[in-house]
C-alpha cells in the first residue's frame, strides 16, 4: 500500500541505472534516484561527471549504441525500452528541456513565434485548438517576462539577447505544462544579472505550475540558491543526495566538501598593499569602434592604476569593455584617446618593435587554454618559444629554464614532450602561464583565465597564481565576470559597465560597502546567497 503510493507520487524513479557508451566509458554507475512531484532537484558536478548522461537518459536522447541497464520510470512508465514514436509523444509534452546554450539552441532561420507554436503543432492532442496557438504563444512569452511579445513573434533569434532567447526556450519548455522539466546548465552562458532574472522567472513558473525540475549545473552556489534538494555527481556516481541545509551541515564526501570550501572561500580576502610603485597606469582611455553610422563607443574615460606586485581586477558583464581594455594595454588594439603606461612607457597605439618590447614585460593569458596552445607543438617547445624568439640563452639554458618554469607551475617534468591534447584543462592553463613567464614578463593580463575551467581546477590555478605572485612579485590585471573569483584574487577592483569604470576600490570597499547602484545590482545577482546565509549562521 505504502509502496504503491510512493511509486505513483514519484515523477521519476531510477533504479540501478548504469549507462555505458559505445566506446566503453561508463558515464552513469548504478544510480538510484526518486523525485517526487513538484520538487526542484539540482544535480551538481564537473564536466564528465555523468550529469548530462543522466538527463539524456531521462529524455531518451543518448547516442545510438549506448548500453543502458536498470530501470527508469517516468510517471509509472518504464522508459528505457520505449519505441521512438512513444518517446516523441513524451518529449516536449510530458518532459520538457531547457538547454544549455541559448545562443545555438533556437533554429536561426525560423521566427521565434513559429518555434514556440511548433510544440503545439507537434503535439496537437495536448495543446489548445489551432486558432488559439498564436495568442497562447503570446501568453507564454508574457509569462516568462518577455516584453512586446506580440511583435517579437516575428523576430528571428539573432535579433534577441541571450537572456531573451533563454526565456523563449523556457516558454517552449513550459508550453504544454510538462510534469518534468530538465534544465541543462540553462544559465551558465548568461551574465550574472541576466542569470538571476532568468532563474527567478524559471523557478517561480515551476513552483506555480507544480512542475518537477531537474536542474543540472556545475555551480554549487546556483544549485543551493534554487533547489530543494542537491545531488552531487562525480565520475558517474551519485555522491550526495541531501537537502540544502543538510548538504552544508552533514556532507562527508571529500569532493562535496571541496566544492563547499570553494563556495565559502570569501573569507580570505587579500589585504590591500600600499606600494607606490605603479606597474600599469591607464588614463582617460577611450575607444570607438566602427565608422559613421556604425560608430559606437566601447570605452570612455577609463582610468586606473595597478601597483606592482598586486592584483587589480576589472569585473563586469559581457560587452562592458573589459576585454577591449586588456587588448589595448597589450598593444593589440589602437586606442582612440587616452594613454596607457606599462612600466612607465607609453603603450597606447604602439607598433613594430615597441610592441615586441612591451610583450617582454607584459603577457596575456587567455580564457581558453585549448585555443591558446598550438596543438601540434610539444609542451617544451611551447614554453621555450618566447625564449627562442627573443633569443634568450642557448638551447641548454632554455631547456633548463623550461624545466624550472614547469616546476614553478607544478607541471610534472615528464610532460615536456607531450602535446596539449594529452593534458587536462588545468594543466594546459599552467602551460599557458609558464609560457607567459618565459620571456621574463612580470606583468600578466589574465583575460577570463579561469572561466573555462572546472570549479576545483579554478581553485588550484588560483592558488598557483597567488604563490607565483608572492614568489616573483608578479602584477596581475585580472579580467573576469566572476564576482566570486575576483573577490578572492584581487587587491583592488574596478567595476565596469558600458565602457566605463563605475566604481573602484579595495575588495573590502567594493564587496562590503558598494557605492554605485550597478555594483549593488551585480553583487545582489551573485549566486550563493543561500550558502552565505548558511555559512554565516554556522559561524555565528
Amino acid at each position, binding site marked *: 500500500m505504502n509502496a504503491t503510493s510512493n511509486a505513483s507520487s514519484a515523477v521519476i524513479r531510477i533504479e540501478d541505472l548504469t549507462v555505458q557508451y*559505445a*566506446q566503453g566509458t561508463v558515464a552513469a554507475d548504478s544510480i538510484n534516484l526518486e523525485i517526487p512531484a513538484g520538487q526542484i532537484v539540482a544535480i551538481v558536478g564537473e564536466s564528465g561527471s555523468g550529469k548530462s548522461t543522466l538527463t539524456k537518459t531521462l529524455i531518451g536522447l543518448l*547516442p*545510438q*549504441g549506448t548500453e543502458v541497464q536498470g530501470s527508469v520510470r517516468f510517471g509509472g512508465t518504464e522508459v528505457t525500452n520505449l519505441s521512438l514514436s512513444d518517446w516523441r509523444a513524451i518529449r516536449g509534452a510530458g518532459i520538457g528541456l531547457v538547454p544549455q546554450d541559448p545562443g545555438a539552441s533556437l533554429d536561426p532561420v525560423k521566427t521565434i513565434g513559429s518555434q514556440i507554436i511548433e510544440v503545439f503543432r507537434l503535439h496537437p492532442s495536448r495543446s489548445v485548438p489551432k486558432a488559439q496557438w498564436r495568442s497562447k504563444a503570446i501568453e507564454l512569452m508574457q509569462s516568462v517576462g518577455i516584453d512586446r511579445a506580440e511583435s517579437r513573434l516575428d523576430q528571428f533569434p539573432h535579433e534577441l539577447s541571450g537572456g531573451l532567447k533563454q526565456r523563449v526556450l523556457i516558454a517552449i519548455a513550459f508550453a504544454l505544462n510538462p510534469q518534468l522539466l530538465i534544465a541543462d546548465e540553462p544559465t551558465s552562458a548568461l551574465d550574472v544579472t541576466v542569470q538571476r532574472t532568468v532563474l527567478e522567472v524559471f523557478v517561480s513558473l515551476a513552483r506555480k505550475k507544480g512542475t518537477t525540475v531537474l536542474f543540472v549545473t556545475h555551480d554549487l552556489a546556483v544549485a543551493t540558491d534554487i533547489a530543494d534538494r542537491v545531488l552531487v555527481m562525480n565520475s558517474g556516481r551519485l555522491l550526495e543526495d541531501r537537502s540544502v541545509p543538510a548538504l552544508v551541515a552533514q556532507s562527508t564526501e571529500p569532493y562535496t566538501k571541496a566544492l563547499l570550501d570553494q563556495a565559502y572561500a570569501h573569507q580570505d580576502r587579500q589585504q590591500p598593499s600600499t606600494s607606490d610603485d605603479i606597474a600599469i597606469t591607464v588614463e582617460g582611455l577611450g575607444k570607438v569602434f566602427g565608422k559613421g553610422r556604425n560608430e559606437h563607443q566601447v570605452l570612455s574615460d577609463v582610468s586606473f592604476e595597478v601597483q606592482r606586485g598586486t592584483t587589480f581586477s576589472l569585473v563586469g558583464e559581457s560587452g562592458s569593455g573589459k576585454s577591449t581594455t586588456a587588448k589595448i594595454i*597589450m598593444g*593589440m588594439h589602437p586606442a582612440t584617446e587616452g594613454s596607457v603606461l606599462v612600466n612607465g612607457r607609453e603603450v597606447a597605439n604602439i607598433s613594430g618593435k615597441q610592441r*615586441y618590447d612591451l*610583450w*617582454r614585460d607584459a*603577457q*596575456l593569458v*587567455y580564457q*581558453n587554454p585549448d*585555443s*591558446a*596552445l*598550438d*596543438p*601540434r*607543438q610539444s609542451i617544451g617547445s611551447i614554453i621555450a*618559444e*618566447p625564449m627562442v*624568439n*627573443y633569443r634568450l640563452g642557448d638551447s641548454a639554458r632554455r631547456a633548463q629554464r623550461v624545466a624550472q618554469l614547469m616546476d614553478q607551475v607544478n607541471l610534472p617534468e615528464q610532460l615536456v614532450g607531450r602535446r596539449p*591534447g594529452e593534458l587536462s584543462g588545468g594543466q594546459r592553463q599552467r602551460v*599557458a602561464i609558464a*609560457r607567459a613567464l*618565459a*620571456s621574463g614578463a612580470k606583468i600578466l593580463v589574465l583575460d577570463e583565465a579561469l572561466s573555462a575551467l572546472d570549479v576545483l581546477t579554478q581553485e588550484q590555478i588560483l592558488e598557483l597564481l597567488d604563490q607565483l605572485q608572492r614568489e616573483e612579485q608578479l602584477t596581475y590585471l585580472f579580467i573576469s565576470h566572476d564576482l566570486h573569483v575576483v573577490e578572492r584574487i584581487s587587491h583592488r577592483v574596478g567595476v565596469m559597465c558600458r565602457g566605463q569604470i563605475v566604481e573602484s576600490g579595495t575588495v573590502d570597499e567594493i564587496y562590503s560597502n558598494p557605492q554605485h547602484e550597478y555594483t549593488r545590482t551585480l553583487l545582489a545577482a551573485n549566486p550563493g546567497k543561500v550558502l552565505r546565509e548558511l555559512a554565516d549562521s554556522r559561524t555565528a
Partner: protein
Amino acid sequence: MSLITEHVGSVDTADQPLASTKTATKIGNPAARWFAAWWVLIPLAVFVAWAFLPSLFTGHDPITGVPADKLLAPSAEHLFGTDHLGRDIYSRVVYGTRQTLLTAGLACLVGSVVGSILGLLAGTAGRFADTVAMRFVDIVLAVPAFLIALILVTATEPGPLSLGLGVGIASIAVFARLVRTEVLRVRSRDFVQAALMSGGKYFTVLRRHIIPHIVGPVLSLLAVDLGAAILAISGLGFLGFGSPPPTPEWGLLISEGRQYLSVAWWLTTLPGLVIVSAVMLTAVLGRAINKAFRF
C-alpha cells in the same frame, strides 16, 4: 571542371554517419591499420609505373597496329580489344598514362603553388591583400576553368605545357580559397596571437604555427585536384585540344573510339573505366591524407 575539387572536406566527411564509431581504428595490427588507410597507394603506384615504364606492362606497340587484327573484342591477348587500325587499346591506355599524368601533375603544381601563395597572402597580409587576392579569384572563377584552358591552348602552341598551364590556372582559385579559409580558421585560435606576443615575427608565426596546420588540407586537395585535372585534360583531349593523334592520350582514345560506337563498345567503355578508377583513387588518397593530418 576543377569545380569538383572545391569541396575536398565533403569527400572526407562523407563516410562519417552521425554517430558512427571509428571501426577502422579498431583493427589491432599496425600493418593492417596502415593497409586500411593507405592501400590506395598500390594501384596509384601502378599508374605511375605505367607512366614511366610502359614497356614493362605491355608487349604491343601503341602507335603502329596490325591491320589484320582490327576491331577485335577484348581477349587474353588484347585485354581491352583493338581499334580500327588493329592497335592494342590496353597498350595505348598504358602509354597514354604518361601524357595524362604529366600534364595533370603540371596543372596541380601551378594551381597549388600559385593558389596557396595567394591564399596565404589573403589570409595573413591584411585587408588590402585579401581584397586584391579575392577579387582575382572571383575573376578566375567567373571565366569558366574550361574556357581558360581552351583559350590558352589555342592561343599558344597546343601541347602538354599549355594544356597543363591552362588547367592549372583554372584551379588556382580553388587552392586560394581553401588556403584562405584554413588560414582564417587557424588564425581564429588564440595561439596565433599568443605566438606574436611570444615575440614571433610574421614569417616565424607563419612557418611555425600556420603552415603546419594547412599542409594536410592542401595535400589532400592536391590529390583530389589531380583527379580533377585528369578529368579536365581528358575532356579537352576528347574535344581534340590535347596532343594531336596518333599520340595516345586517354581523352583522345575515347574520342577516336566514338566513331565505332555501334561496332566496338570496348573502344570507349574500357579506357573510360580507367579514367574513372584513376580519378576515384585520387579522391580516396585525398581522404586518407586528410585523416592522417588531422589533429
